[in-house]
């Protein structure tokens, strides 16, 4: 004999409350199925249905209104011993406010049992209607609302629950609880409940207003939590020493601006890496509109002799722009001393420090930004072409990048 599942006989509910009947049947089902109290975890919700903790000798966790199925999902997938049984209990109000949680647990077929005690109303707050209140019940309650209820049994089945059923007669509760507990995966049982204080007072009436019984099965594998071994994102090894091979004196701020999908971010990252390979301190950050796939794409790179604290770039030394989208950005960022490196299709009239080149034509749509920036950086001696090539070779599309940078370097040597 296993110890009793209930720790006390008296119920915390109003006399005659259907919740008491359901809970006692659940305890009997657990006992008959051979559960020791510490093999089960009761996850309770808010409302009258949430008062069950104190009568169970099992593990208990009492959470928030409507969230018991979500809390139970976490417990189930987090269990150190996955053979423990997780049982969530909530009312029809809880199932209404937290319907998403039921759907998600069913969709994933998480190994747990959810019991919805449906007394067709919010009991604890005085008898208001819930999303599971039936039309027949509402008609008798002077409620001018004939919206049909959610059929959670059908919904859970559709969402992927291994087992879902609705039972009205208390005589059948226990057998169905046993069936639900034996299910591997997500099982839902909605049981019809009396609420003598605000709702249906007699079982005979309950059969008339409750939704009809229904039982649906869906054989599929339950969700499994696989705790993997993973490799570190980075190690703490000493970095390889880098040679000082840049001509910048203190600091250089660069903005690269183009259109989304134009390789602006990866160009900036490559230049930042080349900066590190040249013995410099660097920062790199992207700037894009809310949708990253449309409009402009800009990135800032700071190359510095000294460590960089503040990473903002108030007045860039050079702004590279290769498209119309990027040109608008360049106009907003340029200061009097800024050098503009622009595609020859773009024009900044009356701005003396502008350099033009056929970057789009030579570099292509995705390569123009890198091509233009590499061209200028190498020309000015800010970075050696070797540093850029070395950074490019570490990239997964290294061949195309290497070719592009070499081409940009050639333009310089031809001048």
């Amino acid at each position, binding site marked *: 004999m296993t110890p009793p599942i209930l720790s006390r006989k008296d119920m915390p509910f109003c006399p005659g409350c259907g919740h008491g009947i359901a809970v006692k049947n659940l305890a009997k089902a657990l006992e008959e199925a051979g559960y020791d109290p510490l093999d089960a975890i009761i996850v309770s919700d808010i409302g009258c249905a949430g008062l069950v903790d104190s009568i169970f000798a099992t593990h208990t966790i009492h959470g928030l209104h409507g969230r018991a199925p979500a809390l139970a999902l976490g417990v189930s997938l*987090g269990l150190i011993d996955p053979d423990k049984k997780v049982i969530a209990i909530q009312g029809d109000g809880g199932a209404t406010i937290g319907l998403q949680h039921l759907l998600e647990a069913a969709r994933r077929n998480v190994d747990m049992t959810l019991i919805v005690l449906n007394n067709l109303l919010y009991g604890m707050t005085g008898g208001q209607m819930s999303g599971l209140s039936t039309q027949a019940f509402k008609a008798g309650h002077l409620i001018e609302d004939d919206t049909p209820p959610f059929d959670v049994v059908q919904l859970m089945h559709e969402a992927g629950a291994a087992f879902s059923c609705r039972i009205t007669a208390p005589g059948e509760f226990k057998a169905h609880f046993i069936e639900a507990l034996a299910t591997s995966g997500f099982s839902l049982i909605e049981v019809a409940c009396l609420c003598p204080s605000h709702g249906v007072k007699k079982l005979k009436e309950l059969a008339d207003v409750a939704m009809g019984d229904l039982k649906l099965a869906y054989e599929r594998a339950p969700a499994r939590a696989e705790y993997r071994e993973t490799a570190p994102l980075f190690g703490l090894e000493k970095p390889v020493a880098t040679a000082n091979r840049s001509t910048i004196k203190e600091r250089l701020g660069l903005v690269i601006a183009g259109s989304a999908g134009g390789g602006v971010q990866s160009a900036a990252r490559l230049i930042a890496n080349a900066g590190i390979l040249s013995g410099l301190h660097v920062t790199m950050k992207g700037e894009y509109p809310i949708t990253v796939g449309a409009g402009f794409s800009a990135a800032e790179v700071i190359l510095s002799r000294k460590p960089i604290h503040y990473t903002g770039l108030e007045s860039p030394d050079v702004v590279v722009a290769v498209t119309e989208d990027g040109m608008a950005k360049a106009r907003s960022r340029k200061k009097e001393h800024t050098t503009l490196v622009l595609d020859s299709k773009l024009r900044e009239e009356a701005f003396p420090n502008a350099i033009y080149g056929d970057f789009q034509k030579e570099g292509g749509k995705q390569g123009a930004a890198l091509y233009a920036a590499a061209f200028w950086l190498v020309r000015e001696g800010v970075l050696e072409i070797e540093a850029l090539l070395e950074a490019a070779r570490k990239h997964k599309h290294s061949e195309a990048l290497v070719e592009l940078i070499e081409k940009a370097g050639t333009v310089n040597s031809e001048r």
Partner: protein
Amino acid sequence: MQLIDGSKIITEACVRAGADVYVGYPITPSNWFYAYAQKRFPLFLAGPDEISVLQWMSGFSAAGRLPVTATSFPGLALMVETLNMAHMMELPMAIIVTQRLGPSTGSATTGAQGDLLLLRGAISGGCPMPVFCPSNFEDCWNLAYESIQVAIRYRTPVVLLTSKEMVMTHKSFDVSALPEIKKVERETAKVELPYQSYRSGADGVPPFVPLGDETYQVRLNASTHGNLGLIQKGSAEAMANTRRLKDKLEKNIQSFTFYELDEEAGADELIVSYGISSDAARDAVTEIRRQGKKVSLLVIKTLLPVPPAILDILERYKKQVFVEENLPGLLRELIYGQARRKNIRSVNKIGSMIAPSEILNEFAV
């Protein structure tokens, strides 16, 4: 040196410290955490919304796991009720909050420092949970570790408060200078019999036993409860338990008080900053001193509960300038309220990071 970002550093530190579950819901500018966590966490789950995320995490935590998530204001707002639940149940977990410009959806790709007072007031009843705020990459590493350690040691949700610019900016950085992180071991609870889930020892922290334990019956509760973990209304025992939630953090705060104090002898003026504005403050201090003026700098890293050690430092300075990326000056308000104070000034801004030059303006003769 390598090119690295704050999201990567924080994710790696969390896992090394022993965090084993990441439950995520995508939101800008926290998405890099999501991507790194998918690679690095032993278990990764995608929640359908932020309420579910924190509920699932609470379940994982109650079962003995150490869950982490990252979000931004809109997600945090949805999490507030469950944050209260986790605080009340005393469930260890870490929530990374990446601040972005509000109100409301605001600008998802613009940084900000606008959520400090939301966190200060998030727990009904007013007792805050620990909030750490990294001011640079070293802090990202160390405070991520401390978040896990403090969450476990004091059985509490911990918030790591960052901002877009901290976690989405790449910088050259020497990771070999970072201290090794050892997994925070969860001591097997020293349990006094009969076991009660909320009976605590001298440090005010009840020993943690997970749901599903073979020996002890565990009862966790989000409503006002007694030591047993069952609902109790108004009893002395239940009130003592509620009071203990505040006391356990305040009593132990010395063990998680973090700040950087760069004091200059003879200075009577102090720049106070935190998070993403700190680096501008560091640069400004260098420049102010270069100009021959005396100034000290305090960068606060434990924001909540406000450590007494921070108040002690503030009391030593007649003049203070609070530097933070929001309009009203939230840290200043946290410390001094809304009362007018002579000699307490602010440098505030929204829409982009505060620049060193904007702090210098405050010191121009």
